[in-house]
């Protein structure tokens, strides 16, 4: 598999980008380091969603729940227990994946819109319980001041930790998408009925994809806590889930790295537009409308169309 990665045409540029990102904190102001780290966390979250949406074709409308569950798990374990901190870091993604398995098991029995609506309702139940359980979860105040291991006490160290975890997760996701499982998942996206006919238990594969995706969402949740040292109920609210969806759309959901681009654009814009105006949501709404009308393939999809005309033109022509 590593031969596969090294020979891919993105390998060289990726190494260069990684090195640049690695040394960047030494030169740029703290604030930018923080923003970059936030972009990494959000990218991981968007990539995890795209596993099931762009590559799996499922209507995962409340993916944010698993992100929030991962974050709250590690937050509660670090703040309220005296267990070694690294157990919290491991528990976060695992609990997220377990919740993903439970919610996913009910959702895969339905298709499309019903899948999405059931997930929104199950996810909202979790949100509303966390929102109200003031004594345990801090309710709508959230949990501030979460302690971190000494190794991660500085922003720079947190940055490196997050960056390395992001790269590891991206490599894993790449391998998964290029594997037989990934191939089959994309076939399920394109034609689930045909997949059943060629011997694939579609529901089981979708469930496995959901568990993998929610595991990575849980990792993103843990990384959020590492960066922010706090958790809020917003992480579990449906608006965030739709925002991640938009990030995937923005970047291009049929490409591998599209969601990263989408996350970077949205986080960067939100931060910098937010300096000038408090009406970022308005701008996001307008951008989304422009995207829907003019760039439905997303930014990366659009560039792919320009640089690979043969393949995409053929695909467009065939699909008409």
């Amino acid at each position, binding site marked *: 598999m590593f031969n596969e990665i090294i020979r891919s045409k993105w390998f060289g540029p990726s190494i260069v980008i990684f090195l640049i990102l690695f040394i960047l904190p030494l030169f740029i102001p703290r604030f930018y380091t923080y923003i970059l780290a936030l972009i990494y966390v959000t990218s991981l979250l968007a990539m995890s969603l795209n596993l099931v949406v762009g590559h799996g074709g499922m*209507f995962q409308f409340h993916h944010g729940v698993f992100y929030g569950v991962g974050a709250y798990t590690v937050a509660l374990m670090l703040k309220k227990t005296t267990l070694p901190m690294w157990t919290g870091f491991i528990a976060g993604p695992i609990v997220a994946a377990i919740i993903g398995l439970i919610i996913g098991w*009910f959702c895969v*029995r*339905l298709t499309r*819109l*019903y899948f999405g*609506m*059931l997930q*929104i*309702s*199950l996810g*909202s*139940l979790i949100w*509303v*319980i966390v*929102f*109200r*359980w*003031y004594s345990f979860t801090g309710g709508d105040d959230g949990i501030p001041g979460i302690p971190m291991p000494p190794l991660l006490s500085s922003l720079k160290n947190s940055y490196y930790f997050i960056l390395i975890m992001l790269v590891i997760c991206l490599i894993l996701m790449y391998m998964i998408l290029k594997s037989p499982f990934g191939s089959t998942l994309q076939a399920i996206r394109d034609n689930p009925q045909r997949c059943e006919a060629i011997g694939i238990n579609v529901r089981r594969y979708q469930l496995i994809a959901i568990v993998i995706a929610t595991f990575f969402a849980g990792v993103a949740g843990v990384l959020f806590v590492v960066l922010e040292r706090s958790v809020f109920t917003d992480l579990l*609210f*449906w*608006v965030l889930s*739709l925002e991640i*969806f*938009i990030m995937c*759309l923005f970047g291009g959901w049929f490409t591998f790295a599209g969601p990263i681009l989408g996350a970077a654009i949205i986080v960067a814009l939100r931060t910098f537009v937010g300096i000038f105006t*408090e*009406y970022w*949501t*308005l701008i*996001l*709404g*307008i951008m*989304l*409308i422009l995207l*829907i*009308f003019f760039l*439905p393939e997303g930014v990366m999809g659009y560039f792919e169309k320009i640089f690979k005309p043969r393949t995409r033109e053929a695909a467009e022509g065939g699909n008409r």
Partner: protein
Amino acid sequence: MDISAFSSQFLVGLSRAMILFIVCGGLSFVLGVLRVPNIAHGSLYMIGAFATFTLTKLIPGPVGFWIALIVAPLLVALISLIAERALFCHLYQREHLMLLLFTFAISLILGDLVKIVWGPEYRSVSPPALLKGSISIFGASLPRYNLFLIIIGPLVAIALWLFTNKTKIGKISRAAAVDREMVGVLGINVSWVFAVAFVIGCYLAGVGGALVAPTASIVLGMDHSLIIEAFLIVTIGGLGNMWGALVGSLIFGVTQSMGVLIWPQFTIVFPYVAVVVVLLLRPKGLLKSVW
């Protein structure tokens, strides 16, 4: 358990369910005809409430509220008509996911527009003199305004039923919900049918917002909390089914208010649990979906 507390809570729940029904009836109607869950529905509801506030401030005295009740929903309907004709109608050929994301974009924009026009403070509206105070029913004390809601709800239901079953446009909308191509083949302009259905649905959101104004604090974010409840109600009722919206609203409204008697801190959790239970048993909703 105190029977009067029980019945008073039940009636409060019932009145809340009526507002939910008016809003969800509109949402369900749009969902049925256009097959798109309109996320902007919550924002339009919010605009209805804020507009009611402004109108009652502009026109003092009890008549202000009644005028607001008529004008605010019309304003909401106008906004939805503009959004539909200018932008939405060009997307009808696209996949439903894109339409859904479009409605999300509109909700983001409208949400901030409300912030720009009205600012972030809480607003409130008091009920008109006719409906102030409480009345005694079955030994329970019920605010007059809530009784008003309990009466209005079924009236709206009847009006909606008459519209969809007895008027030409209503029947065409129902047909378009089931088979839009066929309706097009019959020479009817499907785009206009969608426009009418969308505007009517949004009008109802405005009515709901106007009606809720005297009972709750009018605040930014009420669009978000409402739309999630509305989605859940419409899902458990059966997508596109107006009676399903009624059933769902009743379940939601009553479980929430009864929850106060059982576990006050978690009263808001009860309707969500009820929704989850319904969906696990009947994932496609209690009543038949329109499609």
